[in-house]
């Protein structure tokens, strides 16, 4: 498996949270809008990439018996960095994501990649893996956030972190009655299920 393969597997074959059904808590909670989904995804990319690289570098030094403790310290450090930087530069996003930023520490995807991949593979492969899974997670959250926001509020809000670029697109005009169920947590489950169903259909079509 080449580096490209390690990267692209996170975009379809092992895309979280659809294929790798991990990290559902933030997925359901923060994908109310496009911009929150995107912001959360970017935070996870940073943590996943950095923790995967560092754990891969340290994989021969860390004693197996205390490996989980070491991983948690490494991951928590990067999460706190993200939290502080987000507070300092994109405070509005920080207010929207709130408790879900510190909770990245216990996000199963990050610890899962550390334990399942980075602790057994080289630095470059781990970086590709972390980046791939992270980008996949961001894509999922962005798509999920877009669908939920479009149906639930009739808008799409885009804000690129660290810049002033910010747009709210009104999709359906004033006569639109919002499908408020989509912005509630059960709506997220159903939307997730529908998308997974769609992915399976596409997968089956490919095979046959």
């Amino acid at each position: 498996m080449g580096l490209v393969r390690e990267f692209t597997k996170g975009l379809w074959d092992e895309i979280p949270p659809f294929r790798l059904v991990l990290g559902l808590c933030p997925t359901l909670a923060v994908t109310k809008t496009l911009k929150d989904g995107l912001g959360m995804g970017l935070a996870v990319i940073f943590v996943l990439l950095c923790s995967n690289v560092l754990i891969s570098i340290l994989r021969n030094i860390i004693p197996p018996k205390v490996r989980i403790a070491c991983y948690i310290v490494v991951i928590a450090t990067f999460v706190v960095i993200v939290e502080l930087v987000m507070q300092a530069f994109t405070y509005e996003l920080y207010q929207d994501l709130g408790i879900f930023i510190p909770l990245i520490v216990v996000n199963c995807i990050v610890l899962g990649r550390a334990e399942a991949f980075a602790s057994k593979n080289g630095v470059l492969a781990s970086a590709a893996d972390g980046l791939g899974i992270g980008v996949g997670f961001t894509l999922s959250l962005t798509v999920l956030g877009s669908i939920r926001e479009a149906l639930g509020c009739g808008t799409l809000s885009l804000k690129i972190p660290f810049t002033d670029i910010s747009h709210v697109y009104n999709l359906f005009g004033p006569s639109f009655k919002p499908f408020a169920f989509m912005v509630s947590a059960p709506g997220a489950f159903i939307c997730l299920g529908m998308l997974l169903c769609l992915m399976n259909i596409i997968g089956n079509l490919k095979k046959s």
Partner: protein
Amino acid sequence: MREILKMFIVLGIICGVAGALLAGVYTGTMDKIEYQELKFVKGPVIMEVLQGCTNNPVDDRFKLKYGEEEVKFFPGVFNGKCTKMAFETKGSGFGGDIGVIVAVNISEDTISGMGITTHKETPGVGSRAKDSVPFKNSFAGLSINDDIKIKADGGTVDAVSGATVTSKGVCAGVNTGSTIYKELKDQIISKAKEIK
């Protein structure tokens, strides 16, 4: 034995490096975070009590020592002169401390406005004090020498109905504000002259 020692050392070093790194990032972002909190949490309330000012009160802020604590002052410039000064005090409400922004008219020694920043009051009951315009307006124009009380206690402020404890807490916060202002008045006025 060697294995246990190695576990201690490796985990210790990782924690140490992580701690040092975080201390660095924390120090580096501290000022910026403080500014963002002022801008997004207290800023809107400060702008509300200093409505119509021509400067940016958050950018022009200064600190003064009040006893052991440092109080941040947000000056408001009107018609080219700094005539109002907003600062945050605390009063204890039903669910904990209520953050109260008091604006004082420094040329008349009166309270010109009041706003609430953070609180832990009951949603829908005490929390209404934050948005009640009549309640907030009833503080405007009171002298800083008055002991501000709600009507039930023989004062002039109309309490928010059903939220007597919260209203009392806010009054206490404003009174603390008067005390702080009186104590630091000379310093505040000399600072205010520098601001345009």
